[in-house]
C-alpha cells in the first residue's frame, strides 16, 4: 500500500509532469509536491537563447540515491521521481521535474526542496548557456 520507490531518470524529450504524479502516488498519500525547473529567458544579466545539458548518468544515479537516502532519513521520504533533461532545451522547457508523494504535506515540501537543493550541489549534470554573443558552461570559471 505504501510502497517505497525513488528513482532518477534522464530524457531527451519534453518532460510531462502529470504521468509522474500518477506514478509516484500511493493510496496512503495525501500530498504530492512537485518542482519544475524551467529555462528562463535571461541569466547572469544576459539574454539566453537556449541551453544544453550534459550528464554522467551512472554517477548521477549513485549520487541521487545518496540524496534519496538523506531525504528518507530526514523527512521519511519513500516515494520520489526525478526526471532530468539532457541535450538542447528552449526557453520555457522544463530541465528537471521532481515529484514526491507523502502522507502529509509538510514532509513533502521539505523533501522536494531538499532534493532539488542537493541535486544542484552534487549530481553530475552540467548546463551550457548560449547567449546572443557566445556561450558558457555554468559554474566553471567562477
Amino acid at each position, binding site marked *: 500500500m505504501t510502497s517505497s520507490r525513488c528513482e532518477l531518470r534522464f530524457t531527451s524529450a519534453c518532460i510531462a509532469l502529470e504521468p509522474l504524479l500518477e506514478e509516484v502516488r500511493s493510496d496512503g498519500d495525501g500530498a504530492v509536491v512537485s518542482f519544475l525547473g524551467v529555462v528562463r529567458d535571461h541569466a547572469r544579466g544576459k539574454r539566453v537563447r537556449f541551453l544544453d545539458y550534459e550528464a554522467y548518468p551512472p554517477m548521477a544515479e549513485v549520487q541521487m540515491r545518496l540524496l534519496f537516502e538523506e531525504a528518507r532519513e530526514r523527512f521519511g521520504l519513500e516515494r520520489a521521481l526525478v526526471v532530468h533533461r539532457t541535450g538542447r532545451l528552449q526557453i520555457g522547457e522544463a530541465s528537471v521535474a521532481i515529484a514526491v508523494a507523502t502522507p502529509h504535506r509538510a514532509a513533502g515540501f521539505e523533501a522536494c526542496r531538499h532534493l532539488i537543493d542537493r541535486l544542484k550541489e552534487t549530481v553530475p549534470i552540467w548546463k551550457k548557456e548560449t547567449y546572443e554573443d557566445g556561450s558558457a558552461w555554468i*559554474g566553471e570559471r567562477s
Partner: protein
Amino acid sequence: MKIAVLLFAGLREATGESRVELELGDGATVGDAQAELLRRFPALRERRYAFALDHHYATAATALGSARELALIPPVSGG
C-alpha cells in the same frame, strides 16, 4: 594498471576528448592520474574540477585500486 578517464562539459571541449585510457604504475592514486592528464592536456591546468572514482567522489589521495573509471567532475550545474 589501466584506468579509463572521463571528461565532461568544458573539460571535454578543452581537451577534445570525452574518454582517455591511462597506463599507470601499481598503487597509483587519483593524484598520479591527474599528473599524467596534465602532461597530456595542458588545457586542464587552469580548470576547477573534483574527482569521482567508480561514480563516488574521491580526492587526489585516493588509491585507484581496482577502480575502472575515473572522472573529472567540473562544477555541477544541473537542475
